[in-house]
């Protein structure tokens, strides 16, 4: 039962890794609904590649790369395909499940949202996913020099944004 085996293995993988992928996506876009759509679109792409992807040694890294690329390409495309997904799913718990006040991390979320997407992706990969400069360069398909400069600019922009946030009454 080859197909069933694939589907079962795929389902097991995305159920296990879904929460982590969602966090990565949320850090990239600062919106839970959009993060869900990014992850959903990404796992569709993962499924299409599953027969090959399942054999990859670093499947987590491969899947994370799909999410990051989906986020970056979304920035380039005016047509957010997420609207398609919105139609398909009633949002479980929408309006009924309270979202805790982000409080301590609110200013960081705002600051991340304020910096350019590619710098944001670099920051998330370096400081949340703990990737090295070389690994980040592989994910973003750019040079290590670009990663270093994007990191420096991203950090600087982040600091500026957080200073502005803090200074704003």
């Amino acid at each position: 039962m080859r197909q069933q085996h694939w589907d079962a293995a795929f389902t097991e993988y995305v159920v296990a890794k879904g929460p982590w992928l969602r966090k990565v996506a949320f850090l990239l876009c600062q919106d839970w609904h959009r993060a869900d759509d990014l992850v959903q679109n990404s796992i569709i792409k993962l499924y299409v590649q599953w027969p090959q992807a399942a054999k990859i040694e670093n499947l987590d890294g491969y899947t994370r790369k799909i999410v990051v690329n989906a986020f970056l390409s979304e920035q380039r495309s005016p047509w957010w395909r997420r609207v398609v997904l919105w139609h398909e799913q009633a949002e479980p718990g929408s309006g009924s499940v309270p979202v805790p006040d982000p409080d301590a991390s609110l200013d960081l979320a705002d600051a991340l949202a304020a910096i350019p997407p590619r710098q944001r992706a670099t920051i998330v990969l370096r400081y949340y996913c703990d990737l090295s400069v070389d690994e980040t360069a592989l994910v973003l398909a750019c040079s290590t020099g670009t990663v270093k400069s994007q990191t420096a600019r991203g950090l600087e922009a982040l600091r500026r944004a957080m200073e502005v946030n803090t200074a704003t009454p």
Partner: protein
Amino acid sequence: MTIGEEELHDAIEELAARPGPPTTMDAPNAIVRGRRIVRRRRFALAATTVAAGGTAVVLAFAVLSTHGTNAHGGKVQQPASSALPHPPGPGSDPLTLSGTFGWLPANAANAGYSLHDSQIQAVARGSSSIGGTKPMIWLTIYPKGTTPALDKFADGATQLRVDAPDVNGRTAYWMTGSAGDPTNGGDTYLRWQSADGQWGELHGYYLATPSVTTEMLRVAAGVDFAPHSVPLPLWISGLPSSTVTSEADLDRPSLSGTSPWDLQLIMTVGGASVDVSVTPAAAAPHSTPPQQVCKTASGLTACVIVDAGAGLPSTLSGGAAEILRHVNLLGPDPANWTTAVLQK
């Protein structure tokens, strides 16, 4: 507040740990959509071998030529109820297939339809799931003159032809990765020819029956290779004649399983993308994206979302709200649905 690299690391961890609303990630939905993509790619490959010198045909969903008939000369289905808004004239149906199901097994008896990249397929799905998976049978009708080729499955296995019993007296074969297993491990493909030589293909999985091959052959024998326009629960006026439907899905039940059916049309109107969805009102999502406009009438909810609205023709400068005004809903009873969907 300024932040060092160590603090940033901790703050990002803290932000990522922040609880969010329940996730809407849906693995079964991803499998269904992923299979559609895989199937489209395979279809594109298979259709490259053309016996009669033609090319892969774009299945027709042209504008109707005469009042009361569709592009293939068939009768347009009009709403039976006088209380519903009748389409005022001829129109086209984006879901016009080159064939449709006849007999279906009881565990996969809900026929839905899908148009993607000019390829239209019918899909029979089960309502009940076995271990979280619903039985599905996909029907593809290859364009006349096209002989589908054998290639490779997604995992790289070579597709082999294994002769099957004739279907209605015409050639049929299983497409499998293992010559000794015509069911291909439960991911079963059957190709056969119609009386006039046109090729059809069934792809069934999760059928959970001890006689998969018998059922697939029976489904194939019942397929009608005649053009078939699928009645839909709406008609839309005011769109320019250049409107192209790039995607259309009538899913029964909805992929999310929360509704007996839902419909989605994605059209290119001028330079804009227009997404129209229809669902029974009781199953409509409570929350919608901010750029989406919705209305409920005759027991159905329709929503419209427009991207790149600046590309809309001047007659639709009101954007999504204006397009929604042109959407007429025909209620939940399929007897009242129409094939004159896109009005001239």
